[in-house]
């Protein structure tokens, strides 16, 4: 691990300013992903701004009847929250489908949104990787790609974004709240927060340098049956091959978002009009234009069948 200096910020704006003013500075929340990457020298910050004292660890009602989730609410606390379990069950289900109990106790809401890909070529510093080292190429293309993206990828990167939590947040039309170094705040829809790779795969999301996530807000509850099905190589503690988050209403209408298939949670609202016609009708719209590799083309059929199983469960 490269050496770094460390400070604890007192306010969100102060934290944002501290990171913005120093090249090589990064925020540190739970640290469960960042420290791992620092040990491998994939991340090499020269200064860490610890945000644990910012008091962003509360879950509150919004005036609109939704929920405001502080950036530092742990994954465990968010999954266990009584309101989340009752009104946004898909979010609890997605969170407890990810990681381990120990990791969920330390990992934060904002940190989960900012976790980096688990593409094996991103992790192997001996390999070219445009996300880790822009311009070096992509060893995943033509390499072992079973876990990697089937849609939204580019000639420069086929990495997937690994979060389960974010798939549910995308489904629920969440908004990411941030503060910048100059104290200005902004709201970014989850739909726009994570970037597709294009020719700049090194940028995972829309945040600017020194821009700090302060909260994630959810709109009013939408009712329905909340489900999250995750298909993986073992029953627990593994990243998704494919996951489906869905909220399905009594009449069979609803929403569906997919994880494990792209560089961001994958949801195509236009395809949801076909929810009452079955999984195939939805999946054909969701995965139109997919560019899978030979090794991961199975994911498209797997996603359709996982959605079919979710729909069957919702019918009861």
């Amino acid at each position, binding site marked *: 691990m490269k050496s770094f*200096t460390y400070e604890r910020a007192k306010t969100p704006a102060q934290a944002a300013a501290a990171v913005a003013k120093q090249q090589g500075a990064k925020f540190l929340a739970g*640290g469960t992903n960042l*420290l*791992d990457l620092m040990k491998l020298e994939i991340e090499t910050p020269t200064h860490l701004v610890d945000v644990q004292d910012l008091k962003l660890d509360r879950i509150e009602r919004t005036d609109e009847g939704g929920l405001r989730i502080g950036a530092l609410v742990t994954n*465990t606390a968010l999954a*266990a929250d009584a309101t989340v379990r009752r009104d946004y069950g898909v979010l609890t289900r997605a969170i407890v489908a990810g990681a*381990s*109990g120990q990791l969920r106790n330390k990992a934060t809401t904002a940190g989960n949104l900012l976790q980096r890909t688990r593409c094996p070529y991103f992790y192997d510093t001996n390999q070219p990787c445009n996300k880790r080292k822009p311009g070096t190429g992509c060893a995943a293309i033509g390499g072992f790609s079973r876990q990697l993206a089937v849609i939204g990828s580019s000639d420069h990167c086929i990495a997937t974004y690994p979060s389960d939590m974010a798939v549910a947040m995308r489904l629920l039309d969440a908004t990411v709240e941030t503060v910048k170094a100059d104290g200005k705040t902004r709201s970014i829809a989850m739909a726009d927060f994570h970037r597709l790779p294009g020719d700049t795969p090194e940028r995972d999301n829309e945040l600017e340098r020194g821009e700090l996530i302060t909260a994630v807000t959810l709109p009013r509850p939408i009712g329905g049956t909340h489900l999250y099905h995750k298909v993986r190589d073992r029953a627990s503690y593994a990243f998704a091959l494919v996951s489906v988050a869905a909220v399905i209403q009594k009449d069979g209408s609803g929403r569906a978002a997919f994880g494990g298939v792209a560089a961001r949670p994958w949801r195509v609202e236009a395809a949801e009009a076909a929810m009452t016609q079955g999984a195939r009708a939805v999946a054909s719209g969701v995965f139109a234009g997919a560019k899978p590799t030979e090794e991961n083309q199975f994911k498209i059929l797997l996603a359709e069948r996982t959605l079919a199983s979710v729909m069957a469960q919702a019918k009861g």
Partner: protein
Amino acid sequence: MSAPSHSSLDISRRAVMVSGAATAAMSALPADVQAAPAPSKPATMPVSFKVNGKDVSLTLDTRTTLLDSLREHLKLTGTKKGCDHGQCGACTVIVNGERINSCLSLAVQHQGDEVTTIEGLGTPDDLHPMQAAFVTYDGYQCGYCTPGQICSAVSVLKEIEAGIPSHVQEDITAAPAFTNMEMRERMSGNICRCGAYSNIAEAMAAVAGAKA
């Protein structure tokens, strides 16, 4: 130095490997590489927290993980380093009442925290009920993952009691039960290469007072 009876073949395997590695390292260096600038001294910081009820104060390289501070600086070697990447759970300790991977946490993040390690749960003369149950139910073979398993197991029972939901619950608004499925799911962050899993679940069930 070679013994007369072994002539030129008397080269140790280790010596061959060492010289082989040196050759590989040298040939990997391109001719135009500049000498790296002399590194500046790594940053250090003071940090104080409580371990097993005792106040400790250390001055540490900022890179020191909570795990290394416990093992290397406080000589509490009960907590084990397995993968050092949060994948195996051998380093599990309890911080402010919650289990975490001590390998994925910097010591300086824990100013003022209360840390409990396996040494703080029980002693050889006065075992924690979970330690005693691991003995009774053969919850280990080699024992390397055991301190992490026990710290995790103690926390899992508390998490179920506190109503923290899990992946295997059908109704996530309901209170979770002390079932075998719940124990197994919640312990998935602790790997055991000896495969003592079923006995660990039995030990946990015994402590929970439920039948696995």
